[in-house]
């Protein structure tokens, strides 16, 4: 009799389709008036000696059914949750709620990369003013008045002795005078100005980063190594560097560093003017006159300096063909980076 009941109950349980049916099943078999309870009540009809055994059997049955019920309940709940989730599906291709950050200027982003690379080599940022004296911009950099090399920079003049700096190099003198007699490793970023008509290739305002290292054993090979390291970290690790002689009044010897063109890999293209090389920077060993003007004895100290525009590397890296985008501030440009 108990076996029959168990079999029937289990069949019914397996057939329950949902939570409601499951609850009804529970009431029917295990409820206060359910079949199992009824069975227990029928114990009085048995002879007294059989009663304990029968009672135990009924309780065992109840426990077994309760366990089966819980297992079935878990299955049904899971099924029902899945059904519910299925009906809650949304179009995941719709756009999200507008939020999110703005964009840093490409120059800022480029400068940060440069700072990080040079920080790794012990160079720290030193800032100097935009409006400079003729003496710092030219004179103390080994270009006394009427020096022919001054022609290399078209200058905006504010007065006889005051100008908008044409390069970040006056910062060399400032930092040397401030830090003497410490050794120096700094980079000097900043706005520079040149009296130039604005075209796709030239701006009257642009950013430059100058580097200066002064110490008791600094050599040309260190300069070449530092520039190579920079190019490989700023661009790609397998870039090649070419060093060629050049002329700057404030360095001696003077060099320029080129990198194999990242667009054509040195084969020659429009961007590298079919030379296969892109100019990375002008550099050299600090001229003894400049060291002297900064307070460092050139017989004891030596140093190197380099300088490059900030826009040009970004232009090469991102395929920008017009420098006017930088300070034209069209947000459709700036928000691409």
């Amino acid at each position, binding site marked *: 009799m108990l076996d029959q009941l168990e079999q029937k109950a289990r069949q019914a349980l397996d057939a329950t389709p949902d939570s409601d049916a499951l609850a009804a099943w529970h009431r029917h078999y295990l409820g206060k008036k359910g079949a199992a309870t009824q069975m227990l009540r029928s114990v009085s009809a048995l002879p007294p000696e059989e009663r304990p055994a029968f009672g135990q059997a009924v309780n065992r049955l109840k426990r077994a059914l309760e366990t089966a019920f819980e297992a079935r309940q878990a299955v049904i709940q899971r099924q029902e949750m899945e059904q519910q989730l299925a009906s809650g599906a949304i179009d995941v291709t719709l756009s999200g709620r507008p939020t999110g*950050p703005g964009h840093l200027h490409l120059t800022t982003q480029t400068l940060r990369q440069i700072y990080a690379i040079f920080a790794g080599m012990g160079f720290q940022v030193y800032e100097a003013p935009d409006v400079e004296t003729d003496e710092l911009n030219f004179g103390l950099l080994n270009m006394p008045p009427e020096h022919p090399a001054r022609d290399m920079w078209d200058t905006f003049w504010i007065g006889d002795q005051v100008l908008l700096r044409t390069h970040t190099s006056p910062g060399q003198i400032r930092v040397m005078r401030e830090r003497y007699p410490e050794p120096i490793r700094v980079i000097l970023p900043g706005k520079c100005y040149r*009296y130039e008509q604005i075209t796709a290739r030239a701006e009257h305002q642009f950013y430059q980063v100058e580097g200066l290292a002064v110490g008791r054993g600094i*050599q040309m*090979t260190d300069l070449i190594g530092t520039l190579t390291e920079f190019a490989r970290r700023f661009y790609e690790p397998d870039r090649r560097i070419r*060093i060629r002689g050049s002329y700057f009044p404030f360095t001696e*010897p003077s060099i320029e560093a080129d990198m194999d063109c990242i667009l054509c890999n040195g084969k020659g293209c429009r961007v590298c003017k079919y030379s296969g090389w892109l100019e990375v920077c002008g550099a050299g060993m600090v001229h003894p006159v400049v060291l002297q003007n900064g307070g460092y004895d050139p017989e004891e100290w030596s140093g190197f300096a380099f300088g490059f525009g900030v826009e040009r590397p970004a232009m090469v890296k991102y395929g920008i063909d017009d420098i006017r985008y930088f300070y034209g501030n*069209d*947000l*459709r440009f700036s928000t691409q980076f």
Partner: protein
Amino acid sequence: MLVPVSWLREYVEIQLPPHELAERLTLAGLDVESIKLIGLPGAELPWQPEKILVGELLAVHPHPDADRLVLAEVDYGGPEPEVVVSGPPSLLPLRGQSGLQRKVVFALEGARLWDPYAAEPKIKTLKATKIRGVASRAMVCSEKELGLSDEHEDIIYLPDDAPVGTPLVDYLGDAVFDIDIKGPFAHLYSIVGVARETAALLGTALRRDVLEVLDRHPAELTPTTDFIELEIADPDLCSRYTAAFIRGVTVGPSPFWMQTRLRRAGMRPINNIVDVTNYVMLELGQPLHAFDYHVLRPRPGEERPAIVVRRARPGERMATLDRVQRTFDGEMLLITDGGGPVAVAGVMGGLDSEVETKTEDILLESANFDFLNVRRTSRLLGLASEASLRFGRQVDPELTVTAAARAAHLMAELGGGTVVPVIGDVYPGRHAPTAIKFDPAEATRILGIEVPVDTITRILASLEFQVAEDNQRPGILQVTPPSHRPDVTRPVDLVEEVARIWGYDRFPTTLLRDELPPQRANLRLLGAERVRDILAGCGLDEVITYSLVDLEDEGNLLQTEANAGEYLRVINPLSAERSYLRRTLLPTLLHTARENLRFLERVNIFEIGAVYLPRKGELLPDEPRRLGIVMTGPREERSWLPGQDREAVGFYTLKGVTEALLKGLGLEGVFEPGAHAAFHPGRCAQLQVGGEVVGVMGEIHPAVREAFDLPAQPLCALELDLDRLLACWGAPRTLEPLSTHPPVYEDLALVVGQETPALQVRDLIAQAGQPLLRSVTLFDVYCGEQVAAGKKSLAYRLTYQADDRTLTDREVGRLREKIIRRLERELGAVLRG
């Protein structure tokens, strides 16, 4: 400078192909920016060696069927002379003549040539054809067909000694380097100068024939000659004046080879005399000037014409060769004769003493002028020439006599005259060469490479430096630079010569091994970068605008004419819009907003940059950094989602950003009603941080908006002094303990006067609620029917919490009473039901 390699080869043996030579020169500092190949493989039009040849025109026969055509019989080295149909004007009169022996360029069938009739440059292949019934399978070429020039009227005639049958590419092919000479080095502005560098780089010898012209044609050098009286009145500006005399020349065109070289070097042939002066200038680097001897006047009462080099009398005038009347100041140096100015020294000759066709006797000037003075004169007259280009870079004074002799003999060679073997030479500025003490170890100290001493000596000697051992100090060198290297004065200058000839491509790389300098935190930079990150995090885009601005814009911002005296002005601006240094970031930000509103509906931008404030008694201005913000357009971007905030940005949008900035920097700010001409008078606040006013923010005044042509929509802006804002940033902070006891929340709605600033109410609540009141948040502002006129209702959520216990209702109730009493007493606030 344009350097034809064929010309270079005259002075130095070159085995390298042009591009390899260019690379060597470039690495050594002679930057070959481009190479123009003429006829060589790789050129735009390579002259095929088997198809384009030197030919000899033997005879010209009439064309049986055409008046304007001829049959030209040409020997091109083939088995038989070839007869071709041709029609250049110079051949028509020769019809019926033979034994002509004129050298021409002959192209055979299959030759590739420029199509002279194509509108756009186009190469065609020569095909056999029939012209008016006569077969023709080759042609006589014009310069245009060969790409030598645009000349197509007539065919090109080669010199008589051109070897028949030689491929044209071997005879006339060339590579022309365009070298960017960096630095003020006159010695590199010459073919011989570049050849000297080439010889040093290739380890070969310079052919010095032209430099030794005086050995072949000896001449007497004397300050007093019987053909000219020479006087240098201002020896500070003219260190040497040399004059040669050539008699009986015939002025005419210069020969093909000279014209070709001049053209390839970028100069236009004029006549044999002028061409020689240009040729020798290009060759040796010494500018020359040829005077018509008979135009030069003697001084009153004298026989011989005179040349006097002197400063101009202020206001003195003369017409230069370019036919412009020039007026001189008292610092400009003139070449004068007995009557007046005949040339601007080192810059340009005068029109009246120019060599003309009838000229027979030439006085040739070869002088040396002060380079700074030449630069000044050239700049002030706005007159640059090949001569001033070189003189402005310190020409070697030792060169005058060699160049004069070289040019004089070339003139005689080409013009058929005789050179007078006496050269006038006044040389008041002679300098004895100075030796430089040079320790070869210096090269290692500066370069980081070991160059053997004998290599150093060899390199320096190859550049014509004299190297000797110091008698007293063994191992130390005494190096005397050649006279053409006035730029070399220090040991480090010699180090550079060694380095660039040794070759930078041979340098190893090292990383700095030197002592690391003390590393310091740069709070100034870190602060600015932090501000950038916070504002970008708030959805603002960074811009960088121009420092040079229009004064009118500054006036538009301040709604009154800007006082120019407060600004730094550029003396030589590019334009009126870029002539003053800004004192505020706002005008350029407003312009940026306007430009972007043409394409975008929302513009939220910021800039960090310097402004320039002149300081009394100081040469340089103060350059404080400012932060500027401009926001306009809907608060949220358009999207499909419900509950979007498409209201225009307003004061509180910008204030939210400002508060986020303060929070991000960990700073406390106080906003108070502010006043600034650019802002809406009732919607402007000034911000105080650390007890100091750091800037202003608010809604832009509609009049300002209009002045900047901005659309009629709310526009909010802020400008802060970044350095003042950051003054308190980065101060050390200590942790406030976190309570584990539950907070008690309570809402408080008050009615206060309309005018009462919310800040005052908040501060009062916060003060009265000490020490258990942890936060006061305003969540509703209401004025309308529910409150009396002139009143407003403010609803706050108060949070009470203790660190050490759970608060009881009684404690909170007592505090609440205290707060309400103070609000009633001090602000007349009424608790709202």
